């Protein structure tokens, strides 16, 4: 292990996403992070960025319980995007986030294109550094079909949000599609500044003792280390299909997992379910990434990416 910092070139973890510089590539996956609660366990200044829970134009009540189920190496959730609405968020949550020396990425939810646009517009004057637009929400106007599963709809949301927003926008893609590169190309063409992937797979668990689905909502979003091979594959595919930055996520548990996503083509990453297994996971994973880089004498994320040969 070579470890001669100071004399040599210094280790640089920073990454630029659509003009915004993150101190390091570790961000918090939307819906698995709360600044107040997570910050009780580790120093949030360690993060490259905080990605918030999804926020909609009005408060959403979310789904009935149980909302959570554990699976083999993974979990299901059907929180249903419970959130207090953008006005409350701007008034009561955003000010708290501003105290930290890290970037703020606001995850945006919506049931119609107008919903998304309303949130994006309201965030224009605020401290938010970027928006992450979650297009996995069902489009209620189109009978509940996910925006993210059809390239025309994905393109449409991107176009309209891009038009009204003054911030860089990241489009968050769902893995529940036949060809994710098609969706990625569609949103890139309409001005997405970056994409993040993957959102949760759609899964289900039945309790054979109670003889009913574990989740009140029956199906839910499947996340955690179990799904990592799908996420890595999709990041790899999308990297070869678009030129905009990629935030990679899905099952990241260790610093080496981060390196895996970077080699597959990610510019930054998000840590989600890992923070349930270990509340300090994002900070720990950042330190493990540094150890990994020191072991192989990588000085930047770019060097990791370039070391990958197919």
């Amino acid at each position, binding site marked *: 292990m070579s470890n001669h910092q100071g004399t040599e070139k210094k280790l640089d973890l920073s990454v630029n996403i659509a003009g915004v510089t993150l101190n390091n590539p570790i961000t918090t996956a939307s819906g698995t992070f709360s600044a107040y609660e997570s910050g*009780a366990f580790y120093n949030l200044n360690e993060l490259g960025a905080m990605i918030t829970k999804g926020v909609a134009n009005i408060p959403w009540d979310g789904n009935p*319980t*149980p909302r959570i189920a554990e699976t083999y*190496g993974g979990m299901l959730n059907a929180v249903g995007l419970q959130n207090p609405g953008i006005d409350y968020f701007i008034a009561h949550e955003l000010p708290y986030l501003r105290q930290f020396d890290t970037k703020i990425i606001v995850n945006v939810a919506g049931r119609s294109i107008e919903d998304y646009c309303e949130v994006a517009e309201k965030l224009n004057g605020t401290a938010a550094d970027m928006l992450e637009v979650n297009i996995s929400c069902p489009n209620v106007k189109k009978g509940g079909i996910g925006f993210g599963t059809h390239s025309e709809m994905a393109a449409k949301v991107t176009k309209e949000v891009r038009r009204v927003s003054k911030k860089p926008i990241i489009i968050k893609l769902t893995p529940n599609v036949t060809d994710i590169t098609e969706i990625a190309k569609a949103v890139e063409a309409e001005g997405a500044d970056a994409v993040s992937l993957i959102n949760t797979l759609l899964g289900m668990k039945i309790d054979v003792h109670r003889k009913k689905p574990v989740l009140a909502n029956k199906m839910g979003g499947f996340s955690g280390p179990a799904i990592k091979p799908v996420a890595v594959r999709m990041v790899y595919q999308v990297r070869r299909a678009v030129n905009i930055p990629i935030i990679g996520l899905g099952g990241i548990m260790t610093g080496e997992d981060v390196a895996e996503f970077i080699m597959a083509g990610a510019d930054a990453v998000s840590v989600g379910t890992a*923070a349930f297994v270990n*509340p300090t996971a994002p900070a720990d994973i950042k330190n493990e990434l540094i150890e990994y880089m020191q072991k192989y004498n990588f000085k930047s994320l770019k060097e990791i990416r370039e070391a990958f040969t197919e």
Partner: protein
Amino acid sequence: MCKKTVIEAKIIQNQEIAQGVYRMVLSAPEIAAGASCGQFVNLYPKAKHTLLPRPISICEIGEDTLTLVYGVVGEGTREFAGYNAGETIRVSSAIGTGFKPQKTKTAVLVGGGIGVPPLVELAKQMSGEKIAVIGFRDEPFLKEELEKAGAKVYIATDSGKTGFKGNVIELIQEQGISGDYFYSCGPKVMLKALAAYCESINTPVQVSLEERMGCGYGACVGCVCKIKENTETGYEHKKVCKDGPVFLGSEVVWDE
């Protein structure tokens, strides 16, 4: 700033106290120091295919120790039951909003099955008269601990094998047990019935709820319950792991 933590705590004791029910005593001074009655800790299984924390109520808080009492119901608790004294387990700081012991004349503590444990520390924290009414399917546990904490203990079992045959509410009515404040933890059906009973006799009750958890520390909004609020729907989804697990029986929407 980092006021919460997860530590590797040494197991001092891990012993079966009733069929499939274990008492685990942990050496965890820093966690014990910050804990109060009715809060819970998260226990993390070692098996890597089981990811999520297991929330377990704090049964007793010692100077340097925490006592937990848990039932074996699935993979995680089965793993815990296999630990020997001397081994370690990952455990979080005490979490949540617990019981708020009131200065009243007679407190009635009502527990059902694996909901009995948090009543022990509660009883220890309260001066004044206290009556514990605890129900089980078959085999009672923690009776002595409650008595040591100064409670007069009544026992009900479904099977009638020990104590009164029936449920705790029937036992309360049969024995004419009364008090000026109730506290309770147990299965939802029991809590719901008790909340209705307490309302009928115009006595306040604090209830400790359970829900499936994701993070176990307030970040994921996985573990909510419906608490009455002046909103359009008449309730708000509050987090069992943070706003609870203890709520007033009168503020809970008992719909299911």
